[in-house]
């Protein structure tokens, strides 16, 4: 492959944000080199390529400067490899595109921060609050799914789109929380459509080898709790 076509992705395996970039690259059939970083000991490379946030994922395409922030990376991937003969990640219609961006942003504003608390915090009050907010977000997303999917399997209809990737990347962590807390966040009675959707998403080719096993994340959380000298904010990956 010519140097200007080489694609590298810096990431850490537990990160849902990194998963998003991988799923998008897989969807487009793009070959890339994965460069694992260390959450607890960030590399010089990461600090050099993402000086603003010092977070993964970071996408490096050819000799261009890096692209950071997972949703921005996914849009970049969709635009660069638009003519790959693969389905579009962002819808073609501007209104549908705005809707997809809205719900992907919703995942990051209203779901992700509470997941972060559940991963990193051991304060009972914060955890209780996060659980409540997470449940509320999931209920809202069930409604969003019904509207966006129009009776089909994904937010994107027949194929996964921006919202599927944004939310689907959190599925392993949601399962991990269920194991840790003995509480279902995706529930057959309250969010039946999302439960079905989760099954469909997990079996999509582009996603199935990307999402880590929930049990591994449970182990990771134990390790993170023990190694906990890092603040909730510091440890966040976007």
């Amino acid at each position, binding site marked *: 492959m010519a140097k200007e076509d080489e694609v590298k992705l810096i990431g850490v395996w537990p990160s849902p944000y990194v998963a998003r970039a991988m799923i998008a690259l897989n969807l487009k059939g793009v070959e890339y080199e994965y460069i694992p970083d260390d959450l607890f000991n960030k590399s010089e490379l990461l600090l050099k390529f993402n000086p603003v946030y010092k977070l993964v994922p970071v996408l490096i395409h050819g000799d*261009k*400067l890096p692209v950071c922030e997972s949703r921005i990376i996914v849009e*970049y991937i969709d635009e660069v490899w638009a003519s790959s003969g693969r389905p579009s990640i962002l819808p073609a219609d501007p209104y549908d595109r705005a809707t997809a961006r809205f719900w992907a942003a919703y995942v990051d504003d209203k779901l992700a921060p509470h997941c972060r608390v559940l991963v990193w915090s051991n304060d009972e009050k914060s955890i209780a609050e996060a659980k409540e907010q997470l449940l509320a977000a999931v209920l809202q997303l069930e409604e969003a799914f019904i509207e966006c999917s129009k009776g089909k399997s994904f937010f994107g209809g027949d194929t996964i789109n921006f919202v599927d990737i944004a939310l689907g990347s959190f599925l392993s962590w949601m399962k991990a929380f269920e194991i840790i807390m003995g509480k279902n966040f995706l529930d057959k009675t309250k969010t039946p459509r999302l439960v079905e959707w989760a099954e469909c998403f997990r079996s999509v080719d582009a996603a199935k080898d990307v999402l880590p096993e929930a049990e591994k994340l449970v182990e990771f959380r134990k390790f993170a709790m023990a190694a906990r000298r890092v603040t909730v904010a510091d440890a966040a990956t976007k």
Partner: protein
Amino acid sequence: MASEKEVKLLDFWLSPFGVRTRIALEEKEVEYEYKEEKNLILGEKSELLLKSNPVHKKIPVLIHHGKPICESLIIVQYIDEVFPSKTPILPSDPYARALSRFWADFVDKKISQYALRIWRLKKGEELDETKKELVENLRMLEAELGEKKYFGGEDFGLADIAFVPFTSWFYSLQAFALLSVEEEFPKLTAWGNRCLERKSVAKSLPEPKKVYELLSARRKELGVE
């Protein structure tokens, strides 16, 4: 027979997020109906707002052909995509677009929460901390801008639109937090003045003194002063 204007904007004059959408509409020379949420500062929201943005219940909301679009940067990109013009808000190159989005997003993540909170803080640790964060982040913006005309280079774009509404708050930052953007960030100051030369910006930005007056009154009500 009254005809419904095709484009409506639900907004509040003070909101930097609202200003973004106004600038975008002006850049594209779109005729629109401006609907002010007059009592927003009292916490009152109109039926139309609650119906159009049931999830967040916030302005701005753009209503196009009866369909609502929410979240300012999403609205601006929608406007760019739907209303073509000689001056696109996002460039065509995917890498340049990613950069534009990154810095617009940076303003949301690293500027707005500090700039919009600092006015209601009493003298003390929280004010100092907030000011410190804001200054650090403004420094990053100043460095990113460098010697360029706009954040995107020669063309006024998404990142400029994202940040320029906050220039109306600089006067208040000086008054309430003793933060002089003019002194500490000459490049951003010059950029702000360049942006003001654009009709779309001059028309859309609230006057810094008016912002100051409203915030000053609110500070007294909240007992900050």
